[in-house]
Structures are given as C-alpha cells and as structure tokens.
C-alpha cells in the first residue's frame, strides 16, 4: 500500500460519501417542504402576522382600511423578498441545500427550545444529550449482554438455557417500545414503583446527585424495554455466530493445537470477525439516535426523536431538515472512518 494510493482512495471515498450526503439532504428538503407547499403556509402566517402588526400599530391605526391594506401588502412584499420567498421553489431549495450542507441550520418556524431559543441548532443540541444518553447506554449494555451470554451459550451448547434462548428468540421481533408499554403498565400503573416517563422528576431536583439519581430512575424502564426486546435474539445471534465460526478450519486447527477454549474464542473467532461486529455496532448506535421516535414517545423521553415528532406535527421544516442533516453527517463520517480504519487495520483488506 502506497501513501499516495491511500490518499487517493481516501479522497475518492470522501467525495463519493459527501455527494451521497448532499443528495440525501436534498431529498429531505424537498419532502420536508412538501415540494414548496410549506412555504405557502409560511407566507400565509407571515401575511397574518404583518396584518395584525399594522392594525395594532398606532402609526397606521387610524388610516382607512384600503390604505392599511396597501401598507400591509408593501411590508409583506418586502418581507417576502428579504426571506427570499419570492424566488421559485427550485431556486430556494438550492439555497436551503447550501445552508443545510454548511450546517447553517437557521431558525425554527414555530418551535422554541426549552431555554427559549428559536435557533434550530439550539433546539437540537438541547435534546441530543438525552437521546444519546439513553440509547448509547442501551446499545452498550445490549452489546455486552449479547456478547458474553452468547459466548457462554456457545460453550454450553445444548444446555437448558440454550434451549430456552432458542425457543424465545422469536420474542425479539417485538420492538422495544411495545415492551415499554407493558413495563409502564406493570411498574408504573400497577405497582407504582417507577415513573410513567419523562427525564427527571417534576420539579427537577437541584442537587446534582439527586438529579442524576432521578434521571437514572427514569431511565430504568426505557432501558429495560430495549434490553428485553433485544435479549434472546441477540444472544441467539452471537451464539450461532460463534458456533458457525468455530467450524472454520483455522479454529479447528487451533483446537488441535491445544489452545484453551477462551483463547480460541478471543483470538480465532472474535478477532477475525471484529470488523463486521464493530461496523454493525457503530451503525446501529447512530441509527438508534435517530430512529427512537416511538420509544421516546411512549416514555415521553425529551430527546431528539420527540423533537422530530413535534416538528413533524407542527410542519416545522427547518427543524426536520436540521435533524436529518446532523444525522446524515454523523452517519457519513462514521462510515468514512470505518472504511479508513479497516483499510488501515485489517490485513486482509489492506493488501489483497
């Protein structure tokens, strides 16, 4: 592998991924603007707003209706021009695209952040930590549960626990949010031991330790719902993966060499298959940050999913596009980094 080749490869892959991101964002812009229809809503709102302003303004209050009308028109036209809404939608969509790509996310149409900001960036940044906290924790816990219990089962192939896991693997087709409803039913509604939802108690405790504990308490049920949902299939998957890989010739050879079981698992099964495992984990993690709308709704968890959902309900296009842009960049950068890292690390890819 030459350094020049590496640079060329990296650059080409980077450009391709960037173009992919641009197209994806553009599609989002078109759909989230309903092909320009949202702008009509915005224009309507703007007109009403200006009309009210003018009518309340003492300067124009006493003018006759037709005069007021004229002023309103003029102000409206001016505002439309300022916002660029007079240009055809196609042209505007390109401006939106440029803004989106340069991470100039602009202002929300209707929504405000909890701290009162109308900047899309603030709205997203305010909620992102909650989502990342909950789902990263869930993904990491799941990853280790599946890995270790799966490993355990591949060693205890055919045991009672193994049979139970195989039999119950289909339960994982039931999504986390669905288990969530039951957990709420049992632990909140029936037993009254855990909260129905939300991030912290109301009012939030002022003491940081108490605050953290309160958040933790609120995290139990959503976390549990994802853990239960992934549990059996995840373990089954890892177990089967290990069993299938343990029939590889080089694993057999390692066994013949008299390597202890754990060493074989680590060095001969896990290590060669680490790249796909890490890829899946990384992509799944980022996916979880965006795709958790339902879980966040069920648990009323104030994260990015809930923001997206609120934005959709309010036709707040800038927020929707903003979330998508952040997500697209996150994903593209991850894919890019994984590509590069594997290119550098995996000897099989490096030089074939």
């Amino acid at each position, binding site marked *: 592998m030459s350094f020049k080749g590496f640079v060329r490869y990296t650059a080409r892959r980077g450009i*391709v*991924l960037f*173009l*992919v*991101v641009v*197209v*994806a964002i553009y*599609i*989002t812009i078109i*759909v*989230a603007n*309903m092909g320009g229809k949202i702008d009509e809503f915005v224009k309507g709102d703007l007109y009403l707003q200006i009309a009210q302003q003018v009518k309340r303004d003492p300067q124009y209050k006493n003018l006759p209706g037709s005069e007021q009308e004229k002023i309103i028109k003029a102000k409206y036209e001016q505002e439309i021009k300022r916002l660029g809404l007079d240009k055809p939608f196609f042209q505007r969509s390109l401006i939106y695209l440029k803004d989106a790509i340069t991470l100039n996310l602009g202002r929300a149409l209707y929504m405000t952040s909890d701290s009162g900001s109308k900047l899309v960036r603030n709205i997203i940044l305010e909620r992102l930590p909650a989502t990342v906290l909950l789902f990263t924790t869930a993904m990491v816990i799941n990853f280790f549960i599946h890995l270790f219990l799966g490993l355990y089962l591949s060693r205890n*192939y055919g045991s009672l626990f193994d049979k139970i896991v195989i*039999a119950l*693997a*289909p*339960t*994982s*087709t*039931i*999504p986390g*949010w*669905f288990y969530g*409803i*039951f957990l*709420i*039913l049992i632990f*909140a*509604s*029936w037993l009254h031991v855990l909260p*129905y939802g939300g991030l912290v108690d109301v009012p939030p405790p002022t003491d940081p330790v108490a605050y953290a504990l309160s958040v933790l308490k609120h995290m139990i049920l959503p976390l549990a719902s994802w853990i239960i949902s992934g549990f059996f299939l995840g373990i089954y998957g890892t177990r*089967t993966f290990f*069993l*299938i890989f343990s029939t590889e010739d080089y694993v057999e050879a390692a066994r013949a060499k008299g390597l202890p079981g754990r060493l074989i698992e680590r060095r001969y099964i896990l290590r060669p298959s680490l790249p796909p495992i890490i890829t899946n984990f990384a992509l799944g993690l980022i*996916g979880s940050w*965006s*795709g958790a*709308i*339902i879980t966040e*709704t*069920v648990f009323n968890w104030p994260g990015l*999913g809930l923001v*997206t*959902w609120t934005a*959709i*309900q309010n*036709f707040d296009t800038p927020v*929707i596009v903003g*979330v*998508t842009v952040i*997500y*697209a960049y996150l*994903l*593209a950068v991850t*894919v890019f980094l994984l590509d590069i890292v594997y290119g550098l690390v995996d000897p099989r890819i490096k030089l074939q």
Partner: protein
Amino acid sequence: MSEVGMEYSLKGILRELLSYKSGIASIVILALLIGLSVYTVVTIPPQKAIAMWRGENNMWIENPRNAAPEWMAFFVHKNLPKTFKVASWEKSFGIVKAEAPLPGTSIKKIHIEMSFNYPYDDFPSEVNIFFRAKFNASKNTPLVKIYWIKPDGTRIPVTEMTMRDPNQILYVSVDQQIYNNLVMWLQKEKGITPYKTVTTQQILFGKITPAMAQGKVDVEKGAYKLVVDATTYNKGDDVDLKLVVYGTVYGIAGTDHLRRPLIIALLWGTPVAIAFGLTASLAISIIQLFIATISGWYAGIIDSIIQRITEIYMIIPFLPFLIMMAAFYKLDIWTILAVVIVLSIFGAGIKSTRALVMQIKEYPYVEAAKAYGASDARIITFYIIPKILPPLVPGLIGSVPGFVFLEAALSLLGLGDPYLPTWGKIINDAYNNGALYKGYYYWILEPSFMLIVTALAFAMLGFALDKIVNPRLREM
C-alpha cells in the same frame, strides 16, 4: 462428505417444517389468524366496519363506556354487572303499562311499571332512560314523574319533568337535578347526608345505611322497579321509555371510551395487520431481489449507481421520513404501505443479496448456461433467482412482524389509517385516554395480545424455515 444440494419442493419443506414443534405451532396459529381474517372480511365488509367504528347514528349509545370484557368477572371472582335494558313497549313479564284517559278531555294518564332483577356484585357504570314518546312539541308536552322502587319496597321519587323532545334521553347517572333530588330525599326521609363521592347509581342500587355518610355503600341485590307516571295532553300522544342500566363488562372484548365494542377492531385488525405485513415484506423482498440481482449481474456502472442509491437510503432516516410523509400528506394505510415499500427497496438487504449474486455469477452452472448460449435475462430469471430465492424466504417471513409493528407504531402516533380500525389504533386510543393511569388494562392488553401472537407466529415460522434452508443452522 459431499455437499448435498437441497431440494426445495413445497411438500418437502412442509414435511420438514412439521418436524419442528415451533413449526407446527406457527402454522396452526397462522392458519387460525388467516381463518379469522377471512371470517371477518366476509361477515363485516370494510364499509360496514368503518361505519361501525365511526359509530354512525349513535349506534353504540346503549353500550357501556370503557367496559371490561365479561371474562374479567372470572378473574375478580365477582358477578360484575352486565348491561341490561327494559323497555315499556316490550310485552314481557314484569312490564306493565296502563293508560287511563281522563273522560271529556284529551288528557291521558299513563302508568308504567318495569320490574327487573339486579343480581350483580357491583354498581352499574351508568343509568340512562331513553324516551320514545309521541307528541307535538309545539303544544302541551307530556309531564313525567319517575319513581324508583327498591327491593324492600322503598319508593324514591327520582324526578319530575316536562318533556321537550319525543326522543329525549335522561342521563340519570350524570343528571345534577336527579342527584339533588335523591340527596334531598335521603336527608328528609332517612336523615342521611351521603358523602360527596357517593354516586347516583350507588343511591339507586345501594343499601341505604348511615355508612353512606362516610361514602361506603354496598350493593343491594334484588327486584327493582321503575315506576313512571306520565300525563299527556293531546290526542294520540303517548309515552314509552327504555331503561338502560349499563354494566361494567361487555362482550368478549369490552368497549372503549366511545362505547364501541373493541371486538370490531380486534377482528378487523387481523386482516389489516397480516395484509400490511405480508405485502410490505413480500414486495420489498422481491423488489430488492431484482435490484440486487441486476446490480450483481451487470456490475460496472449500473452496480455503482445502485450502490450509491443504497448509501443515500442508508443516510435518510427511515422512520422519521416515513412519519413525516404520513403526517404531512395524511396518508391512508395502503398509501403508507406504498411509502414503506418505496423507502425500503434500496435497504440493507440488497448488500447481502448482491454479494450472493456475485458469488452465484461465478458458479460453474451459470458459466455452463453462458456456454450454451443462454441470454442474460434467461440466466437471471431461471438460473440465479431460483437459487437465491429459497434462502431469502425465512427472512421474508421473519420480517413480517416488523411491518405489523410499524403499522402499530404509526397508529400509536395517530398516523394510522383515518378510518379502518386496527390494533395500533386501539392502543393509541387507550394511550390517549389514559388507560394506563385509569387501570383499563384490557384496552391495551387485548390488541397487544393479538399483535404478539401474530408476530410470534411469523417469527417462529421464519426461524423454523431458516433451519430448513440453512442446513448449517440445523445441527445448532
């Protein structure tokens, strides 16, 4: 040991399938669900189902609100009240209607007595009286007095009123006037001031004891009587009425906040869920199969384009996008289905199938086909697709539950079909009406049960098929 090719005959697969317990279970459950779907669609045509779910013409007014299913009685070991109705126009035992015209006038006295037995362990959820009178509202309208006779003979004046509307409804249990009358009667005749939590139903159907003052009332079982004395003023006027005592349980599935029997939605949810899940899964798998095959077979520029589209799809977040489309354009379920399909056809499945095609492309038998001159189209359709289809079937079946739950999730957000009743919509209603807070667990558990059974049946079938077409898994 030689690599033994699989024979994918339908009979062979079925035979193999039946050798697994989970295979048998899933096939039985799916057969039941499909039978149920067919039964539902035949007995309740879609238009009728939509009308029923809208509750057109107040058709459910005589159903209790939020009634649990009848079998709940079994769990609480109590005789929970069912809804019962007595109507003055029915000729049956215990119903007496006597008319006495006042000679020389057009005035008529009507006396109605309706006896009924109340054997339940709990109070009714609601009591309403539906009139069915005949009079001209612009003239003198009938005067009605209503009395309530308890099993011990105690006679309680319920109300006195002048009718306004021939089809007037007296909402006995929520009528403030009636409640005041009853409390006044209690104070005057029994010297008891009931605690403020005591309801109209409790006064009517409860034992009148001083404990009422503390808010404690027991049901008084026995024979009750509703007595109505009406006076009509014009010729041809008449008064009839129907007493509806609403239970707390209803049917095999209970009712919701709009008094609709949940069974309708539970039944209709089955064909909708299965059709939605199977169609989505089938369409996506088949389209992906073709895209992947073309991508893998032709390679080069077509392949690159398809690969890039796949990456664009990967970057566009599926669920938010779907939700956005559903919310913006107010889509019905079949349009949502189409959107789901379109948003999935360039999904992750293409990658693995494409890899498989690339592998099969190099198989000697494909080369042999080229050597005797088979065209690309022929090789794709007759040589490659039959080879990659069987391994895809388990995944296809296994992904059905995902789409069933997707529909439920959209419904949960209120984005489901606006008219058709589905399981997700029941859960949505239950959620919005605080079923979890108020303890209407059946409301959530019933559709959930259907969802789970359906999902598990498909999932188990998928797993069993996987073992059959993937012999490597068999010994594991």
